[in-house]
């Protein structure tokens, strides 16, 4: 299923206790994963903690990686995103990340840089299917994915009722699933 995946073999080596392979994996992937942590947490100190947590988890659970179930990159991205989301969900209620000064320019809603930057065939397939969604559906899903926003925060950000945003997300995911299934077929 996955042929263009340089990360998978490094994960398998890390699972065998190969620290040099893990160091190489870190050098190769940490700029992407740190960008994701910063994108979600938007505070450097939190992002650094989440980033460290993510790679410690990757090292400790590398033996659970199964190349038949997906690419190594998407596996470590999921771990990094979960580490960042856990931190985000624990943040004090009165802290709104949007007030932070360390904001980044990220592919929060514009599909063009995504399509340009995506490399693997799976990533290109996802970009194609995202391109078939309505703009609001796509924007809502990407804001949630890249910035860890709740649907309420997306509604505030876009100035639309929360019910509308929920409906965009639900219908967008449904269409995404249908498109990915047909692309696979």
């Amino acid at each position, binding site marked *: 299923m996955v042929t263009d995946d340089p990360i998978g073999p490094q994960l*398998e080596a890390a*699972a*065998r*206790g190969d*620290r*040099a392979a*893990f*160091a190489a994996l*870190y050098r190769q992937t*940490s*700029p*992407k*994963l*740190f*960008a994701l942590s910063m994108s979600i947490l938007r505070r450097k100190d939190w992002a*650094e903690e989440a980033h*460290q947590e993510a*790679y*410690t988890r990757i*090292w*400790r659970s*590398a*033996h*659970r990686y199964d190349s038949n179930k*997906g*690419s190594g*990159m*998407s*596996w470590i*991205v*999921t771990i*990094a*995103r979960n580490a960042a989301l856990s931190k985000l*969900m624990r943040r004090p209620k009165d802290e709104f990340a949007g007030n932070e000064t360390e904001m*980044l*320019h*990220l*592919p929060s809603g514009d599909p063009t*840089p995504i399509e340009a*930057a*995506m*490399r*693997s065939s*799976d*990533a290109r397939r*996802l970009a194609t299917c995202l391109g078939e969604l309505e703009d609001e559906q796509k924007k809502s*899903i*990407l804001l*949630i*994915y*890249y910035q*860890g926003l*709740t*649907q309420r925060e997306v509604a505030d950000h876009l100035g639309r009722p929360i019910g509308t945003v929920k409906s965009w*997300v*639900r219908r967008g*995911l*449904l269409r*995404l*699933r249908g498109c990915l299934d047909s692309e696979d077929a």
Partner: protein
Amino acid sequence: MKTLSTEDRSQLAAEYVLGTLRGPARVRFERLVEDDAHLWQEVAFWEHRLGTLGEALPDLAPPSHIWTAIEAEIGPATGAAQAPRGLWQSAPLWRGLTALAVGLAAVLLVLTVLPATDPAFQPVQVATLQNEADGSAWLVQVAADGTAEIASIGAAAPPSGRSYELWLLRGADQAPVSLGVTSTQTPRRLVLPASFVQGTGFAVSVEPEGGSPTGAPTGPVLFVGGLVGPTNN
């Protein structure tokens, strides 16, 4: 949950992965996934698909001190020679473990193999990790396809705020590999890493809740045992 349509289940899995499923609903969903292979496949589908979005981000180099901190947790990449020599590198420990594994072979002859939770699971080798102090043990059964199951045989629950963690022992000159936290309540299936070879053993240590923070055993190693049974290669 069982009455939900395939579409609803996919939707829930997608919202879980995306992160819009939060609070008590998220916790309930995580419980459901544990016992529902189809739902787990849906989660894996979305994790893989949405995970590719990470490739689109512009690179942002993390400060170098983070790698230093990670290395401090997992040990340096420059080789075992520079790693601190801890308990696991101690020759007397390994001589002791070998003797213990030989002794346990006799115990295994009379041991009744527990039925696996999955009827398709066909163990070909077993290891009993015994606690010499009270005779309680863990049973690790290994199948030919590289999967294994661990179950408690009378092992007491870990102390409050602690977890049991299973380790794969690979030899005197190599650090053990974590196989994750293990419960005295329910048997757990796991996939053995590629580093698993015949003749290796297992151990269970007591760690902080959730598992060792360092990637190596930090607490007392209470249970140790070697594999016994016909090899499959």
